[in-house]
């Protein structure tokens, strides 16, 4: 009996060399994964724009470089806050998660990281009923302390401490164009129950008023309200693809 047991044991146990090799592979993968996580979650990442909501400036399929440490980041599901190098500024193009997007359950998050790692960020874990990883790219218009109102598609902002309302262009120095030409006729007339004009909205601390340059598309702060800084994942600094339209934002 005793002999058999011992015999089986040594038969099925991997030899020291194999064990060592396996250990090294696993260690290497873990370190690579950790490195990748830190790099993409905290330092830098890229996005492929999924929506035309930033037309005319940014098109679908454009690729953007996102810098993370400029803004505060929240690691491990908001447990750890790492302060940002600066605060989001008016006119910044940011990536953020819509606040109705469900996250993966905690136990699937690491699995998804592995999937993304091995597919070069091309694929996410597909679960039956998830809406995760739908990232929006839009522009910050209102900062904490501001009052924002929209009338007839003109965005007006009274900055915190300011005396009067100014348009978004006056405040940002005409750095971008917006698209309102394709909005349906009468969209912002008073008879339209779907009026996206916004009453005076005070931007709370820790929140931002974000809208897309293409005012025809939703969702953004006009329809779903202010965006918490926890949902803002980084600042778009550069379009690196397509090559002929490379530019720094």
């Amino acid at each position, binding site marked *: 009996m005793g002999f058999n047991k011992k015999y089986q044991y040594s038969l099925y146990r991997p030899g020291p060399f194999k064990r060592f090799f396996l250990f090294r592979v696993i260690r290497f993968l873990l370190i690579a994964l950790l490195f990748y996580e830190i790099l993409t979650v905290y330092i830098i990442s890229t996005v492929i724009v*999924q929506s*035309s909501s930033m037309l005319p400036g940014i098109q679908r399929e454009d690729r953007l470089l996102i810098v993370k440490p400029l803004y505060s980041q929240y690691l491990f599901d908001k447990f750890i806050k790492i302060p940002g190098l600066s605060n989001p500024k008016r006119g910044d193009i940011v990536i953020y998660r819509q606040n109705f997007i469900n996250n993966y359950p905690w136990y699937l998050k690491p699995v998804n990281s592995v999937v993304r790692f091995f597919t070069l960020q091309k694929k996410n874990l597909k679960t039956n009923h998830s809406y995760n990883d739908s990232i929006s790219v839009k522009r910050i218009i209102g900062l904490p302390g501001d009052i924002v109102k929209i009338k007839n598609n003109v965005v007006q902002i009274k900055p915190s401490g300011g005396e009067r309302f100014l348009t978004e262009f006056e405040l940002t120095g005409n750095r971008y164009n917006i698209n309102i030409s394709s909005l349906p006729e009468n969209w912002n007339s008073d008879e339209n*129950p*779907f009026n*996206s004009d916004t009453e005076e909205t005070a931007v709370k601390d820790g929140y931002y008023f974000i809208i897309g340059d293409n005012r025809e598309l939703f969702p953004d702060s006009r329809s779903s309200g202010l965006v918490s800084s926890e949902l803002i994942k980084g600042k778009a600094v550069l379009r690196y693809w397509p090559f002929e339209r490379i530019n720094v934002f």
Partner: protein
Amino acid sequence: MSFRADPRSLYIHIPFCVKKCRYCDFYSFFSSDDSFIRNILSETLNQIRIYKAQYCKSNFKTLYIGGGTPTSLKTADLGFFIEKILEICDSVPEEFTIEINPETVDNNLISLLAELPVNRLSIGIQSFNSNMLEVIGRNCSPRANFNALEMLKALDNKNLSLDLISSIPGQIVSEAIDDVKKALRFAPDHISLYYLTLEKKTPLYDKYSDTDQDENCWVEAADYLYESGYNHYEISNFAKSGKESLHNMNYWRMESYLGCGMSAVSTVYDENKCGSRLTASSVPENFLAGPDKQWGTKVEKLSSYDLLVETLMMGFRTSEGVDLEKNNDYFNLDIRELLLPVIEGWKNKGYISDDNKNLALSRSGRFFHNSFMIDILRYLEKVKYNFT
């Protein structure tokens, strides 16, 4: 929450279409009047708000925007409408389906879908064959079907469901199978394969009621799907495992559900196990009269007997069958024992699957769902089944 007490599914009807298909007997029409369309939508939101407060104790598990053609709305209208629905619902449902017609798929729609928490896209392909599309009067070409599917397939994290129609007058078996093969190229999570019914009062009926429909088209296409690894989980529906439509399962289980919008139907139940089927008006003025006139809603009362018959009729459509535990308890009777004289015969032919929990027709049995139900109804009439 006890069975049937709380509606967990919401259907929202968008009654507008770009052009009427020849076979269609759904309630839909064309309108180019934007403000009329928006008034209907905003009254629909009003109805959702009031119905939810009136009937629901918990949040919706499934949402389904159907039609008509929801995607025929202007992008801004559709986006705003969906956002308002989510605001009223106050939560993101587990399954959120929108029906899409291929000819309405463009960059704007894709953009909207990419950012909104819609996770199931039900695409009305019907056929990839231009002659067949012509016969049923679909406002779409095979090319447009392919293009739309390619664009939708590229979206991350959406379950795709394709609608196909089979046994179109003049269709031959190889054409029906060819449609299925083309659909499978996109590896959809779900396929609904319908047998074309020529509804009276449709132009298709007037034109083709004398032309033969080859039933084998549907049968062979269904077999092909089944053999390709799709669960044939309801007479006309096929899904990869785990991708069955939760919303439709709710209908087939005869759970309560709400329907909002013109001509939409809700079914709710009271403590006496009787149901009410509420159908909102399909006359715009009546619908727009709003809550004061109850949106012109017609109410049909369902007795417990009606409810039992429907539970059987719907349940036997699915591979899951009739949930005996829940329904015995609900109706306070033993359904298996009640139906024993009928199911014995069908069981001997191998058409019944019966574990202790569910009573169902087997896959081959479901091909005879109609005759089976006729047997059951005759029997119930004969024994004059009486509820206590």
